[in-house]
């Protein structure tokens, strides 16, 4: 759908090496791109490196080597060289990109327990230096079915409600890209489907690109514009290598 536009996240020739005790894990990402408005699914079993890829896209983990890593915040401005930012460890610039462009949905929501639901939802916008009109918060909450929870603390919500609130928090401040890490892992299949539907619909209405990481192929395949998966093989006793590739049939 957005073939003509430049990708807002563009990764080429990325290698990430992680070592733990004796074992070494190598992730190779030859090509990864997210275009505006796209829903990108990253599918794989646990340990394949999908969360590592998401953390690098989320700018909280530095790639070991990368050929090209650019983020384009808007079409009028040129791309931002993330590889260069990591090279000089420009933490301020990276966190500025995070707060301006991204929204996050963590596996268990990642809501701050000491803020109310409403405060959680408004926090990203406030970090950006703005605020979200109460009407928008309430409208979005109504769409996700958590309108009655706005003034409660996260601890008082069910897990499904928490995930919906987390999706709200990730979207409410109008980011360009929402990164979702197994957003439905903690709920049953039926509920997961509903939550995923809601997120998909909302992202499309808000024209926000989504990268969703999941191990559940069925959940995303019919919704994703692009999907990536991982081929893992044991290089040696210690070294495991994983290659990220587009799933056949999905456009990129």
């Amino acid at each position, binding site marked *: 759908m957005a073939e003509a536009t430049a990708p807002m996240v563009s990764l080429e020739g990325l290698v990430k090496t992680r070592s733990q005790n004796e074992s070494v894990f190598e992730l190779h990402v030859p090509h990864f791109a997210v275009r505006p408005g796209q829903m990108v699914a990253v599918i794989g079993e646990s340990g394949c490196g999908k969360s590592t890829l998401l953390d690098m896209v989320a700018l909280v983990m530095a790639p070991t080597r990368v050929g090209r890593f650019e983020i384009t915040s808007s079409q009028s401005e040129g791309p931002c060289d993330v590889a260069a930012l990591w090279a000089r460890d420009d*933490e301020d610039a990276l966190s500025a990109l995070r707060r301006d462009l991204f929204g996050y949905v963590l596996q268990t929501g*990642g809501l701050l327990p*000491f803020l109310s639901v409403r405060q959680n939802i408004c926090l990203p916008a406030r*970090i950006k230096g703005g605020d979200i009109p109460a009407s928008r918060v309430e409208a979005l909450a109504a769409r996700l079915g958590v309108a009655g929870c706005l003034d409660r603390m996260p601890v008082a919500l069910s897990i499904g409600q928490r995930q919906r609130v987390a999706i709200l928090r990730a979207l409410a401040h109008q980011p360009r890209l929402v990164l979702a890490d197994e957003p439905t892992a903690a709920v049953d299949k039926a509920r997961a489907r509903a939550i995923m539907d809601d997120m998909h619909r909302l992202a499309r209405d808000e024209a926000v690109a989504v990268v969703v990481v999941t191990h559940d192929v069925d959940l995303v395949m019919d919704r994703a514009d692009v999907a990536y998966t991982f081929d893992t093989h044991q290089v040696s006793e210690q070294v495991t290598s994983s290659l990220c590739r587009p799933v056949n049939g999905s456009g990129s």
Partner: protein
Amino acid sequence: MTRARPLRLIPGLAALHLRHEWILTLCLVIALAAVISPLLVLLGLKHGTIHTLRERLVEDPVFREIRPAQTREFKPEWFEDVSTWPGIGFLTPTILPLSSVLSVVRTDTGKGELFDLIPTAAGDPLLLENGGTVPEDGEAVLTAEASRRLGVAAGEEILARVTRSRGGRTEAAELPLLVAAVLDPRAGSLPRIYAPLSFVVDVEAYKEGYAAPARGWTGDTPEPYASFDGAVLLLPEPLSPITRSGLVINTGFGRIADITEDGAGELLGFSPPPGLAAYNLLSPGASITASNLRAIDQKLRGHTRVLLPYVSDVEIRFGEEELRLIGLSVDEEQAGILSLPQTPWGGYTGRLPLGIRDVLWPSAREEVLQQKVSVRSAGVAALEFDLHPVGRTALAHPVVPVELLGVLRTATQRAVAFESEAGRFEMARGGYRGFRLYAHSIDDVPGLYHRLKGQGIEVIAEVEAIERIQVLDRGLTRLFWLIALLGVFGGTAVLVSSLYAAVERRRRDLGVLRLLGFARRHVFFFPISQGLMIAALGLAAGFGGYAALAGTINHAFASELAPGEAFCVLPGQYVPVFCLITLALAALASLAAAWRATCIDPAEVIREQ
């Protein structure tokens, strides 16, 4: 996004976090308050106790006072001398305790009280350091007790009534006084009234029967007595050895010496006629007065004789010239023996003659013929007065009543004033019966104490108490700092551990904050804000606890304390200093936690459950 100021959100988030974990926060605040309160109480106790003791023993002028232990006479010269000693802060003479009781009456109700009248003067520390001012003439300062008994306050007028009994009659003099100030209770619990020395001296004089003309108080005038260095005895016949030696027994004279005519002439200023036996009666180092001369006269009853008292060392100046005067008071009989004319003022009687300033001017000196001769005499206080020429004399020097020379001699030892209006000599005050002495600082007290004792003056001073307090002060200060050090360590340790633990506990939340767009340097201030907030809350609770405890302590010891004193008191300037130090320590204590917070890697923590 240039509008983004994530740092501004940190304190709010930190506060919400503290509120969310309110039980832990409360415990931490209580723990801090439990350190801060006792420290404040200790600081308050140290300051209050030592201050109270210092106030009492060091800064209260009473403890800088050196009091005479016995009543004795102190001459004005003594005061002049002592006031030049180093370390003297204030010195004023005082009068006899009995003479100092003054009746003070309220002008409106007529209610009267008897107060002790104490002299004061400019710079009196007892008054100035107890909320008073130094009264001017016509003013007085009351002690708190005096003010209470009389029911008058500063600015009101009172009436001082001095009473005396003279010749069987009771007389009273009154003078209105303005109450210039009322002293703090600290200045003493006795009812006292402080007034300028001149007033006190006038009151004393009035009580002794004398007048105080400047105040319109009538009474006697103290007449100076004549004193002499010796007497020349002239007789037609020499004395028998027994009579001769009898003259120095019980007469106050110490020695009798044969002298020649020339010797007599030297002493008297004129040569007696030849053929008379001449003796010099003297009493080295002492003064000869009328009673001594009377005693000699008694012993020589029946002898034909002339007893001529003389004065050796009185310096009289007539303009620029030093004037030698002949003191001679002889009646007709004595004049006959001396082959001189009788003096117009009569013979020596022991009392001052009316014409004490009469003079017989030498015929040889024609230059002075006017009615008055102005002369000056040196003495304790210089005297300046006129002589009245009443005739001529054949002698070489002007002749005056010997009593005049006697008075002038007395004036070299005691203050004598010449009252030009009344035209007479008056005895000025001799000495004082005591003094009020304040050392410049407490450190001067021991030195002055020993110097006065060295003069043979028994004095009382709080030398030991002062030294004790200084030792106690140093000891308590050291003790306070030791305990304060312990408290600071404890409080800081509590903060360090709690904040660090909070960061460890909230790693995931801090990681989420990073993920949401806070940089490392932003989350750095999360624990710092919390440390400062907890310290602020701890300070508030600590001060609350201090206030309660200090109130209890002061209440419990109220009976031990004078009004206006407190055992536990924190001076205002300590409070901001204490708060700043606490907040600075809290910020320091949260540095470890802050550093820990910056080390959090969001990628590691956001998936933690």
